[in-house]
């Protein structure tokens, strides 16, 4: 069967988009790689679905109206005349290819942690901040006994307070930026102030120290993490004084990178976001530059769950209108989107990544974890005449491994002094050659 709309991504943006479009009378399929709806923000354990808040409301709005295809990982999207074909791998261990077709496509693929390399960052016990949060929210596993939380951005606070609340000894939160004047510049809504205050109180209650202008610049241990080097930073993130902090776990993240593989495959125009990383360009109705393709949530710029949900609602309505359904104008929703976008952009400006992190690297520091490319080999390739990250990749292989540069691509671009480029990955998920050759079955 052919759907009016296929939504890719079951987080706040995708759920809201699917619900809005289905309420307007469209036949909607919602595709997600995970075992249940929610994405990263609404991640919850198998046995404890949230009963209050926005998730149950969104889920109720989706349920019965849209076809939910969980455990469907999209590896490529193609145009087929008037339709868009979403090619998935369904299942987990016994995955099989399946294709879902729609007249319109909404991309709500979210974001993942932005990582910076530093000595020892591939030691077991070093996790991304999002990874530690996913363990806690999805599996109810506290990532370690004594945990350091580090990096930059407002996300470090819920991670640290969640871990402390779950019984971990959080040795400290190390926020690389100094955050002077942030409240004045970002002008947060009262609800956001209350949320931040809640985290701060939780940290206070558990006596977790918060250090602004400091970072973890090295991780140490033999077969696993035993301690980290923490540095006080100057404005450009160059280390001033250092000290050692013992810990068995480090949760580290420097903001987020939107997942843009699919919109780039389709040729959707991108632009540099406020933080320099590419985002999908959309109009006020969340239409991308490619007819029939829409984007909502982090793909259009990292802005958090509230903004993602609003964009999803707007996108779902736009799709309905574009397919000839009547939808009443929603000026309040559009205003809310503008306000939340302004707030998100102010936060991105308040939590930049400064160049000084490059000075944390030693020649042996792995830049690419998959291909085990040390910083020295990146410099060597540059000396051999590789002038941009593409040439570096061909000569020294960073970004050629399993993750296809998702983890190191940002850092490699920065090391080459260039702006991060939109990803060119014709295959967004690993697929067996046999599956690639087979004709997939239609879903459902």
């Amino acid at each position, binding site marked *: 069967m052919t759907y009016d709309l296929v939504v890719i991504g079951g987080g706040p943006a995708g759920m809201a988009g699917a619900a809005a479009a289905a309420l307007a009378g469209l036949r909607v399929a919602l595709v997600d*790689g995970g075992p249940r709806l929610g994405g990263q923000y609404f991640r919850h354990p198998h046995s404890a679905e949230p009963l209050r808040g926005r998730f149950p409301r969104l889920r109720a709005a989706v349920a019965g109206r849209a076809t939910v295809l969980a455990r469907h990982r999209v590896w490529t999207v193609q145009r087929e005349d008037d339709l868009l074909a979403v090619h998935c791998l369904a299942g987990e261990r016994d995955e099989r290819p399946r294709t879902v077709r729609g007249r319109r496509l909404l991309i709500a693929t979210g974001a993942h942690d932005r990582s910076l390399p530093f000595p020892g960052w591939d030691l077991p016990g070093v996790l991304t901040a999002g990874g530690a949060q996913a363990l806690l929210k999805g599996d109810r*596993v506290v990532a370690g006994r004594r945990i350091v939380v580090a990096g930059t951005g407002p996300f470090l606070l819920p991670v640290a307070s969640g871990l402390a609340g779950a019984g971990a000894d959080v040795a400290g939160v190390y926020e690389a930026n100094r955050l002077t004047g942030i409240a004045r510049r970002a002008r947060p809504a009262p609800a956001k102030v209350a949320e931040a205050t809640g985290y701060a109180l939780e940290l206070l209650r558990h006596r977790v120290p918060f250090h602004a202008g400091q970072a973890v610049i090295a991780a140490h241990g033999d077969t*696993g993490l035993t301690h980290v080097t923490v540095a006080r930073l100057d404005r450009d993130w160059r280390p001033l004084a250092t000290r050692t902090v013992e810990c068995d776990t480090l949760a580290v993240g420097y903001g987020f990178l939107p997942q843009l593989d699919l919109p780039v495959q389709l040729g959707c125009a991108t632009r540099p976001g406020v933080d320099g990383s590419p985002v999908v360009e959309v109009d006020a109705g969340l239409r991308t530059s490619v007819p029939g393709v829409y984007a909502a949530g982090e793909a259009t710029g990292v802005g958090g769950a509230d903004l993602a949900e609003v964009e999803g609602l707007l996108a779902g309505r736009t799709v309905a209108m574009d397919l000839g359904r009547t939808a009443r104008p929603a000026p309040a929703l559009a205003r809310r989107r503008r306000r939340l976008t302004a707030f998100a952009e102010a936060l991105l400006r308040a939590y930049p990544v400064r160049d000084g992190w490059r000075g944390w690297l030693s020649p042996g520091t792995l830049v690419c974890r998959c291909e085990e490319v040390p910083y020295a080999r990146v410099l060597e390739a540059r000396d051999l005449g590789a002038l941009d990250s593409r040439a570096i990749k061909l000569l020294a292989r960073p970004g050629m491994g399993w993750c296809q540069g998702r983890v190191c691509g940002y850092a490699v671009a920065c090391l080459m002094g260039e702006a991060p480029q939109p990803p060119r990955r014709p295959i967004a998920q690993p697929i067996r050659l046999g599956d690639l050759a087979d004709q997939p079955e239609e879903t459902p």
Partner: protein
Amino acid sequence: MKHETEFEISFDGGPVPARQGQTIGAVLHAAGIRSWRTTRFGGRPRGLFCGIGVCFDCLVTVNGTPSLRACQTEALPGDEVTSG
């Protein structure tokens, strides 16, 4: 809250407790097993890093099937996980 089934999986032959719905990566990490493969060149130990299916550091062999992402693969009763 739904009833939460508890069961065991094995890691290199030893028993590891698991709860229904947990990923293999979460089960191992919770049991203090933080590394289950070594890298091709440097023989460096690797386990969970991104935790959400992006980095592929946590690749694992389950019941003989290689290269599964531990953080994306739900643990099932009796799973035999082997390090590599």
